[in-house]
């Protein structure tokens, strides 16, 4: 890397995280620590039915056992000091009256917070076509366009409300894709999850607008443990977006979410994430630990689940949005852009589990690593013995900017059926000198040239995002680039 490139890097490293402000709002928290009392307290605050409490307690028992056995996963290529799970506050919520009859009753300070984040909760101001569930620390504070959606039988609300209003659906599907015993962080989530979004699209309905959840961590010392459940019934289709931000703090905060998707016959779910949790400062202090379990079950014939993620935030990202392709002719997709700058670390990828006949999956992963960023793609393609005619194509490219960054690729291909056709390709290289020179000869600054080339590198993934998000993602990437890279 040339002198001038290094200088560009340093100059750009000065940029600050845009969403790092703190909302001053009175909130109600439980004391830090994790035991049966806390789990019971969370459950009672939410007025949960007995079966759900029992489920949480089973998860808690298992988690405490796992923690005692020291079986926190260590296989990912990330380093962080040991987390003390007894020091985390598992529940924090802005104080408000019990029932809100309309958005007008939401604390104006909260509305302002979301305005500042570019998310207007006032329906008339929203771009039509996007319904938003806003999750602030441990609870959902508002969900827009609910009534309009309900006209078509679409249920979109916070998870807590779903438990009250549609317990039969929640009970049927909760833990059916990610069981409480699935993995260390999913088990923790199952014990202490507080809120999240719930969506159900009934038979034959194509959801007329994008559903979206905006997650915000605000309180100090808390973890965020949300749970999202989306069900597309036969022939239904839905596109769902999530966005996330958090204030700048010197401490690391844990975010351990679980997302479960269920697609029945001929249903389609498109799930897009633009993850911009606070990444820590340029010395690697602070930032969110984003340890998330996301999985979709293509249960029905010809069902399709598509994950698109743009990961630019978090100090550490540990997530593998996956598809279980159970239904014959079902389709799984994973499109990912992950960017690590400063001291960020990401170990991310997907699992495509082929079980039904003639299932197919596509994986496109683009990793960009700059500064001291460290990044690993980790993906599994599993074709089980009965999965006749399975197809997979994977493409993983890594771009390195700067000599202190690193990029790693760990695909696992487990093929137990001879009719499978599986192809995996991966490349790692630095940004092309020729490309940089070409752009600069046309008058672009080095900074703009890098941003342009990187955006081009990610194009295959961006085009999978809903329009509005694609623009946001590009901006985010350019901003992150500014954050550390030339």
């Amino acid at each position, binding site marked *: 890397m040339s002198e001038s490139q290094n200088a560009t890097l340093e100059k750009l490293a000065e940029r600050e995280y845009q969403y790092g402000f703190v909302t001053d709002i009175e909130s109600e928290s439980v004391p830090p620590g994790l035991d049966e009392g806390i789990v019971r307290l969370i459950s009672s605050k939410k007025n949960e039915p007995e079966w759900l409490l029992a489920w949480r307690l089973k998860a808690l028992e298992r988690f405490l056992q796992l923690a005692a056995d020291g079986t926190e996963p260590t296989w990912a290529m990330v380093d962080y000091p040991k987390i003390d799970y007894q020091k985390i506050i598992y529940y924090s919520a802005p104080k408000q009256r019990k029932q809100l009859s309309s958005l007008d009753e939401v604390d104006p300070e909260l509305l302002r917070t979301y305005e500042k984040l570019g998310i207007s909760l006032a329906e008339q101001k929203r771009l039509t076509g996007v319904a938003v569930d806003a999750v602030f620390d441990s609870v959902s504070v508002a969900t827009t366009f609910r009534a309009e959606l309900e006209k078509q039988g679409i249920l979109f609300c916070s998870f807590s409300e779903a438990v009250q209003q549609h317990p039969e659906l929640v009970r049927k599907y909760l833990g059916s894709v990610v069981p409480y015993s699935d993995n260390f962080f999913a088990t923790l989530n199952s014990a202490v999850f507080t809120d999240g979004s719930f969506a159900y699209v009934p038979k034959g309905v194509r959801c007329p607008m994008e559903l979206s959840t905006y997650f915000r961590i605000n309180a100090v010392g808390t973890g965020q443990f949300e749970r999202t459940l989306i069900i597309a019934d036969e022939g239904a289709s839905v596109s769902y977006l999530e966005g996330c931000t958090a204030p700048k703090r010197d401490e690391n905060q844990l975010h351990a979410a679980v997302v479960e998707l269920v697609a029945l016959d001929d249903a389609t779910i498109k799930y897009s994430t633009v993850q911009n949790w606070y990444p820590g400062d340029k010395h690697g202090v602070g930032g969110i630990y984003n340890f998330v379990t996301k999985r979709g079950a293509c249960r029905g014939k010809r069902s399709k689940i598509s994950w698109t993620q743009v990961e630019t935030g978090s100090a550490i990202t540990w997530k593998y949005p996956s598809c279980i392709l159970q239904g014959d002719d079902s389709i799984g997709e994973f499109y990912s852009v992950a960017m690590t700058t400063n001291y960020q670390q990401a170990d991310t990828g997907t699992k495509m589990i082929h079980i039904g006949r003639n299932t197919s999956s596509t994986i496109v992963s683009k990793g960009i690593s700059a500064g001291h960023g460290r990044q690993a793609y980790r993906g599994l393609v599993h074709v089980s013995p009965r999965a006749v005619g399975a197809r997979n194509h994977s493409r993983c490219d890594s771009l390195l900017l700067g000599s202190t960054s690193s990029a790693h690729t760990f695909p696992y291909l487990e093929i137990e059926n001879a009719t499978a056709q599986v192809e995996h390709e991966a490349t790692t290289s630095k940004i092309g000198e020729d490309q940089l*020179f070409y752009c600069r*000869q046309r*008058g672009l600054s080095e900074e703009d040239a890098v941003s342009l080339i990187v955006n*081009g*590198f990610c194009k295959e993934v961006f085009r999978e995002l809903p329009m509005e998000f694609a623009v946001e993602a590009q901006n985010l990437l350019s901003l992150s680039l500014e954050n550390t890279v030339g």
Partner: protein
Amino acid sequence: MLELSNLHASAGGAKILKGIDLVVRAGEVHAVMGPNGSGKSTLANVLAGRPGVEITQGSVLFEGKDLTALSPEERARAGIFLAFQYPVEIPGVANSYFLKASLNAIRKARGLAELDAMDFLALVREKAKRVEMDEKFLQRAVNEGFSGGEKKRNEILQMAILEPKLAVLDETDSGLDIDALRVVANGVNALRSPERALLVITHYQRLLDYIVPDFVHVLSGGRIVRSGGKELALELEQKGYGWLGAAAPR
């Protein structure tokens, strides 16, 4: 406009240019010819400021200013355009987007207002027509999957839009069939004007049938061994470069 004196340059540790003197004035078209390895492309790259090409001695002045201190983008904004011998592919970046970013960077540097999407589109459509380039190329990624001829046309399109003061064409004719050559040459000729200078680097005389130069220079062994009018090119065509062997200082 451009003044090279005793220019020495090396690339990848090898000394390539060994003392070039050349003056190009506004309105002039200069052709630089020479065999492979004579330093033609290095000369083009020195002017555009390619990293890795190092000036070891001598000077390069552009409109009286020392070029060596400027970054590639500063030179581009000052009005130097290099049509690449091997135009670079940039996957995922639409050609039109690239052109607009480039044009606006240059306009901004010249104190002009940036063009909005509509005005830009009108401009690019008109220019694309002139180089007989299908509009669909504007939506495709920069040079990706373009044929050799399409890439060169794209270079000329960029030049037409950016309207440089000095355009350096590095073997723009190589790999072109006669039709493509004619289109490219028409595009170049359309840009000839009293305020603009052209430096046409080529191996073959053929291009000069279409872009008629005012001066021809023969480069060999890193030096200009002969200079003359357009008839020199014809002489080279007949005799080849072999006869230069004796004349060329080693």
